[in-house]
């Protein structure tokens, strides 16, 4: 099983962002790393300078580097950013909105988790169109993942395996709305919440996390107990989505389980320590409510 580190979804300080990737390059046992702004085009200018050195450091460390595109493209500048990324990048581009496919013109690329790949027909179509690797939507149950892996063994399938689950994207910025700012004058308040802004029910139950225009789960997805299941299905890679926790430690735990050096139960305990009490979920994979964590075998097709 390979490990892929997804793009940082939060508005981290540029220096912290760069240092995070440097440490990943030097210490994390991951095979591939996605770099790029997926959530908000307004944040992009902050990361443009450090991107080249981050890419070089990761590549020198032997990581495959992918450049991730924006998940929602509406404005003119977002179209231009997406077009230039798709047309000019030397590295494999991870397409997170259909917009990118228009510009790739059949050249090899990756499909990110924000593109709706729910069935064999769509996966096959995308593969014929040049998709080499596909990170499946986190909502998919095990039965769908299994069917998709069977139908396209040539496509490297990846499954969302760790980190808050991206649940929705909007034109409206909820961080700006909460702080009574307009989106155009948002003062980048999302930067105050490097792991997302916890959003609870009126009963104080942990529920969601707001990240600018994106809404994520309060739970961290965690498929550490299901790595063997994923491998059996033919899944090639587990996606680890960066949270404000020790991601090198997270990667090592996943690596050790995938290599059979650590049992799932010990690994679960180790992850609990690293994640400092954040609740885990695997409900989507189990065909249940996404927020749940279920042990045992996933539900059958249905």
């Amino acid at each position, binding site marked *: 099983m390979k490990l892929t580190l997804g793009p940082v979804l939060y508005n981290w300080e540029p220096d912290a962002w760069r240092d995070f990737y440097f440490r990943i390059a030097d210490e994390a046992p991951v095979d591939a790393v996605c770099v790029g702004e997926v959530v908000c085009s307004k944040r992009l200018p902050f990361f443009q300078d450090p991107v080249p050195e981050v890419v070089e450091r990761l590549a020198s460390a032997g990581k495959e580097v992918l450049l991730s595109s924006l*998940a*929602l*493209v*509406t404005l003119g500048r*977002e*179209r231009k950013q*997406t*077009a230039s990324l798709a047309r000019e990048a030397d590295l494999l581009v991870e397409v997170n909105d*259909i*917009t990118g*496919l*228009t510009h790739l013109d059949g050249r090899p690329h990756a499909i990110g988790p924000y593109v*709706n790949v*729910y*069935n*064999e*027909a*769509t996966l*096959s*179509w*995308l593969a014929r169109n040049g998709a080499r690797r596909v990170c499946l939507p986190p*909502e*998919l149950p095990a*039965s*769908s*993942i299994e*069917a*998709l892996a069977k*139908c396209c063994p040539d496509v490297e399938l990846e499954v969302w395996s760790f980190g808050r689950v991206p*649940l*929705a*994207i*909007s*034109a*409206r*910025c*909820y961080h700006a709305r909460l702080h009574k700012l*307009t*989106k155009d004058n948002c003062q980048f308040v999302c930067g105050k919440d490097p792991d997302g*802004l916890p*959003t*609870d*029910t*009126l*009963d*104080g*139950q942990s*529920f*969601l996390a*707001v990240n600018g225009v994106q*809404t994520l*789960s309060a739970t961290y997805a965690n498929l550490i107990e299901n790595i063997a299941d994923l491998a059996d299905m033919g899944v090639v890679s587990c996606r680890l989505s960066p949270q404000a926790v020790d991601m090198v430690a997270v990667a090592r735990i996943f690596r050790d389980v995938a290599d059979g050096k650590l049992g799932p139960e010990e690994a679960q305990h180790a992850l609990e320590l690293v994640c400092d009490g954040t609740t885990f979920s695997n*409900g*989507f994979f189990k*065909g*249940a*409510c*996404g*927020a749940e964590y279920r042990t045992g075998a996933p539900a059958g*097709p249905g």
Partner: protein
Amino acid sequence: MELICPAGTPASLRTAVDAGADAIYCGFRNETNARNFPGLNFSPEELTEGVQYAHFRGAKVLVAINTFPRAGALELWHKAVDDAVAAGADALILCDIGLMAYAAEHYPGTRLHVSVQAAAANPDAICFYVERFNAKRVVLPRVLSIPEIAAITRASACEVEVFVFGGLCVMAEGRCSLSSYATGLSPNMNGVCSPASHVSYENAGGTVVSRLGDFTINKFGSGEPAAYPTLCKGRFQTEVSTGYIFEDPVSLDAATLLPGLRDAGVTALKIEGRQRSRAYIENVVRSFREALSAMEQGRAVPAGMLLAMSEGQSNTLGAYRKTWR
């Protein structure tokens, strides 16, 4: 501009046609459409009869097959496409790439409309569907302002349809798993959002608590009407503040924007609400038909004409007004 009206039942279809709809959209009675609610939708035979009723009166029927087919179960969605074409549908409203490929290959003569569930929000994404699948129309996601819509109609080689009334998704459509996170059932996979099967209300000392699955979505004091717990229109708390952090319980009413939408080059106006009653459909369709007539005759479109029909008795212009963001 064409007026595109919802029908959840054969009776609603006839009502909408009689009230002045240019086209009706509807779906089959299963998970192939995004309003997969108990007691709603059409059998293939009912659709055939509905198409005949509409065509006889000069109206069109558009069939929404706008969920994402489940892996291992493509036949159900293929059959929906086959049945819709056999019934004489004037267009298929699709969102899934694989299903569009199926329709374009097997029924190249049938018009393909890109569903709002595909969230094609710019000319490049629209161009993709036009070039690859010969799409004739795109239903725009509810994330765009009127100037942005105008830019899209100028740059796109297909017709543009926009929502003007009814329920309002605040998230980009077809890209939202909030409902399945709380209930296991989603618009994309099951054709339902915040499904009634997972809704409960509890009265605790004068406070009505509305819940979806295991999660409290809102609480209402005495005298406050208890709205349906649609997840993105609930009240939640953060360290910054507590309230309707995503959207207030409002619905869309863009009637006053009709001239702007016409000038933006919009081809068709869509009314949401296949789950609504015949009385609702009749009232909304007639009102919009009147508003369109008023506009064509150079009269002002009356504001708030449909206020009483809206969820929570208040409405919004949504993303059409840029400050909504």
